[in-house]
């Protein structure tokens, strides 16, 4: 984080729990990282690791039975968690916008694309309906869809997934947000379409200096998009580093595993590596390191206490006993 001077948003000690019948699920547990203006921060991890909930927490859209328990989300000079609902609403879709995973279900099936596109324009930029329509045609063109006028009159079910995701991006861009949160924006799409969408996002970042918080499980996407990477596991940040540093020099055994399971062109292996075991239940996690059971280099201390995230060189942070000084490595 040394190189980052201009911080747009900073998440500090964020904890979001789900209060279920079975018990409290600590989906996001004491997570901290920051997003510099105009940069792309990727949050990676297996599904269920809390990365989507982190994104929703930033939007303050965590649904029942989830609740943001504590922490701070600084955006500019305000703490988002302390804003009144009305003020927060004024930021959503305006300064902070979000693109979701499932474009097919994320648009209202009974409203036309046009109606859904003009809403934030009228709400935040106080445009008249007519102005908003004109503006939204421009947006559609901007996200690379031809025949904008026709598009405005179309219903979501008439469009393909890739088109819909472009529309979602257009909606997100409509008020020139400072921060764009993209929650698995390409997961549900065809491979070829994925690349186009990523290109589009990259272009936007370049054009309008929008910061992007990219949520993904796909290391390929990370490599292509991110400036900075946050790795989450079981609701916690376990490693954080600039993208090149992370890919070249992963430190946490989990990150290493992730990178090993990624096929590399040109190298043949009998079968793809996969991390043994599965993501632990988030209820009643003990004091141990959550990854201990799956870890190939597990230490006795790992089963007793949880490591704290610590700053290393090259802006590299990691939460692992292996890198703590004075820890006995003997079995």
């Amino acid at each position: 984080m040394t190189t980052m001077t201009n911080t747009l948003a900073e998440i500090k000690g964020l904890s979001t729990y789900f209060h279920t019948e079975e018990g409290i699920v600590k989906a996001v547990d004491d997570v901290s990282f920051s997003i510099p203006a105009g940069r792309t921060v990727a949050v990676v991890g297996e599904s269920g690791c809390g990365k989507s909930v982190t994104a929703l927490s930033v939007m303050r859209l965590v649904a029942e039975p989830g609740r943001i328990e504590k922490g701070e989300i600084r955006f500019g000079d305000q703490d988002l968690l302390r804003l009144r609902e009305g003020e927060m609403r004024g930021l959503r879709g305006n300064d902070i916008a979000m693109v979701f995973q499932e474009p097919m279900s994320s648009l209202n099936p009974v409203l036309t694309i046009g109606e859904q596109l003009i809403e934030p324009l009228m709400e935040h930029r106080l445009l008249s309906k007519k102005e908003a329509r004109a503006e939204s045609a421009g947006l559609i063109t901007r996200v690379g869809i031809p025949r904008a006028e026709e598009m405005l009159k179309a219903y979501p079910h008439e469009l393909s997934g890739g088109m819909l995701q472009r529309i979602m991006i257009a909606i997100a861009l409509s008020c020139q947000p400072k921060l764009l949160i993209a929650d698995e924006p390409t997961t549900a799409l065809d491979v070829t379409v994925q690349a186009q969408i990523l290109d589009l996002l990259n272009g936007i970042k370049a054009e309008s200096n929008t910061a992007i918080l990219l949520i993904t499980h796909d290391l390929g996407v990370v490599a292509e998009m991110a400036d900075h990477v946050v790795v989450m596991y079981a609701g916690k940040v376990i490693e954080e580093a600039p993208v090149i540093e992370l890919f070249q020099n992963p430190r946490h055994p989990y990150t290493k595993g992730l990178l090993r399971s990624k096929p590399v062109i040109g190298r043949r292996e009998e079968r793809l590596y996969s991390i043994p075991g599965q993501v632990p239940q988030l209820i009643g996690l003990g004091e141990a390191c959550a990854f201990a059971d799956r870890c190939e280099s597990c230490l006795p201390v790992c089963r007793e206490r949880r490591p704290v995230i610590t700053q290393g060189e090259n802006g590299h942070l990691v939460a692992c006993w292996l890198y703590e000084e004075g820890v006995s490595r003997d079995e």
Partner: protein
Amino acid sequence: MAIYVLRRVLNMIPILIGVSVIIFFVFAMTPGDFVDSNQKLTPERQAELRALYGLDKPVLERYFIWMGNVLQGDFGYSMQHQIPVTSLLNQYLWNSFMIAVATLFLTWTIALFIGVFSAVRQHSWFDALVTLGVFATMSFPSFFLGLLLIKFFAVDLHWLPVGGMISTGSQTTGWAYVWEVAKHMILPVIVLTVLGVGSLTRYFRTNMLDVIRQDFVRTARAKGLKEKVVVYKHALRNALLPAITLLAFELPGLFAGAIITEKIFNWPGVGQIHMQALEIRDYPVLMGLTMLLSMLTIVGNLLADIMYGVADPRVRIK
């Protein structure tokens, strides 16, 4: 679209004929007839009367006679009222219709608001109370509800009339008349609304709960829209879609009358005529009314399908 509607309308003809056959035979098979209901008659006079009414003919022949007359626009004479079925229904149908429309409007509005509100606040006290209330109205005899309202508002407070449609012997006209009828409508409409609003509320709540969990509602929130817009524009529109089917069921209901409420409040509606006609086996009235309701059912279903196509772009009829 036009072709679809035309095809469906043409489809209705064989259905109506089929329905008329079934209904006619159902009534013909019902034990007992109009003449039976007068115990004072001697068997000879009964036979004479059956011949006069044509009740002694074979069912098939009776059906064709009836059908022939219907095709000429003649629905026959009410045996007990001694006037054409159409004028009889005309006397009572609109009274029921008035109440039904008012009730329909109130029921849907109230159910919509309560249903949506309790869905938005699922698991709140309000929601729990509404749920209890809904089931309480279902288990509480409507008969008592009517009597209670009468006791309270009419007998004790003298605010509203006990029953009827106008004050006895009243000579009012114009707006005074409208006001008088409106006053008499209040209590029956309340009873019917309470009866109907429960299940409908439940229905809207469920639909709303289903919709509110969907992704596009989250999108709408993420756009920073006001909660009102999110709920009433984005969620509600979708939650209302399945309700269209329900609305179509209401069409025949508008003309069917509500027997118990009409009775308690002495409302001159068609429900009581229907019941009397059935008790006394006044076939022309039964056939006329049932055919009318059948037709409305079929039209209602057709309307539902068309409206559904219009309202939901995904199943729009091409």
